[in-house]
């Protein structure tokens, strides 16, 4: 299944409207919400995949209309409640302002030093698996069941689909996969154009195996 957030190829949203001289935050509550997110992420209250999944679980009719940072607000609210951070007082501390720069500079690392099986090699033909359960997945709907060519092994990375669900990082091989626009969109795609995705081992089958 796919959530409302899985927007690639969905019709009806109209033209893109770039805005000149846009401020980073056009309202002060958005700046504050960004700060709240950084403080909670830095103190280990949740990981980025849990945060994305919490946004994906927002009521679809709300998700599609809500201002961007309202989605952050709703997701943070969900995670604080589910993890009982507000009620238990456990596993939580305040982030000191002096710690912020160091946290942002240190970043959140998803590349793994663990080894993992590499099932595919550059040039291999693959098919994106069609079944991805009901949780968080990084395999977008528009690519499922579609053929692609592996262009590169990116390395071993935290598997977001498990990390979003408290199942640990379970690192897997990540591949750069190239798709022809025509394979994704039929005759609506330009014959010469391509789309690139990063897909984990669990998202892919060998094209020959899928044919059988």
């Amino acid at each position, binding site marked *: 299944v796919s959530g409302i957030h*899985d927007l690639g190829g969905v019709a009806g949203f109209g033209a*893109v*409207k*770039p805005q000149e001289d846009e401020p980073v935050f056009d309202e002060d509550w958005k700046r504050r919400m960004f700060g709240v997110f950084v403080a909670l992420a830095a103190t280990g209250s949740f990981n980025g995949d849990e945060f994305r999944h919490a946004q994906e679980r927002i009521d679809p009719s709300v998700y599609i209309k809500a201002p961007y940072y309202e989605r952050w607000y709703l997701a943070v609210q969900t995670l604080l409640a589910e993890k009982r951070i507000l009620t238990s007082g456990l596993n939580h501390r305040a982030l000191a302002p002096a710690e912020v720069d160091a946290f942002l500079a240190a970043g959140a690392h998803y590349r793994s030093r663990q080894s993992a099986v590499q099932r595919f090699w550059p040039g291999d033909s693959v098919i994106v698996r069609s079944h991805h359960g009901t949780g968080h997945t990084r395999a977008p709907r528009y690519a499922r069941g579609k053929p692609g060519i592996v262009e590169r092994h990116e390395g071993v990375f935290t598997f977001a689909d498990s990390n979003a669900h408290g199942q640990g990082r379970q690192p897997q091989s990540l591949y750069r996969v190239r798709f022809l626009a025509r394979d994704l969109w039929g005759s609506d795609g330009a014959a*010469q154009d391509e789309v690139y995705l990063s897909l984990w081992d669990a998202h892919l089958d060998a094209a020959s195996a899928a044919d059988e």
Partner: protein
Amino acid sequence: MQGEEMVAVENTNGVHNMVVCTLCSCYPWPVLGLPPAWYKSAAYRSRAVSDPRGVLREFGLEIPGTTQVRVWDSNAELRYLVLPMRPAGTESFSEVELAELVTRDAMIGTGLALSPGSADAGRKP
């Protein structure tokens, strides 16, 4: 944060690259800052992959049919930065002078590097 794994993709005469995040709003914060509202909009997220040439037209870019458009969907933890083509007439430019011509949108792929002396040169995005 958000820039731990950066990949630069190069525009050439035959290839134009553009970057999107269809699932959320992933963007290389440390180099480009927080994304503009349009990058996070449903319109851009939905159409950048299925109608990239139409989206680019809304930014005033007409990509010729002889040029391939490559769309990079930032669906994992890699963040993409487009390396724009060097504008004509800048062969003698220093790195600093060239940087003046590179806009945010040129690095997302929804713009080109500015031409030297153009009305927009030195202006962001």
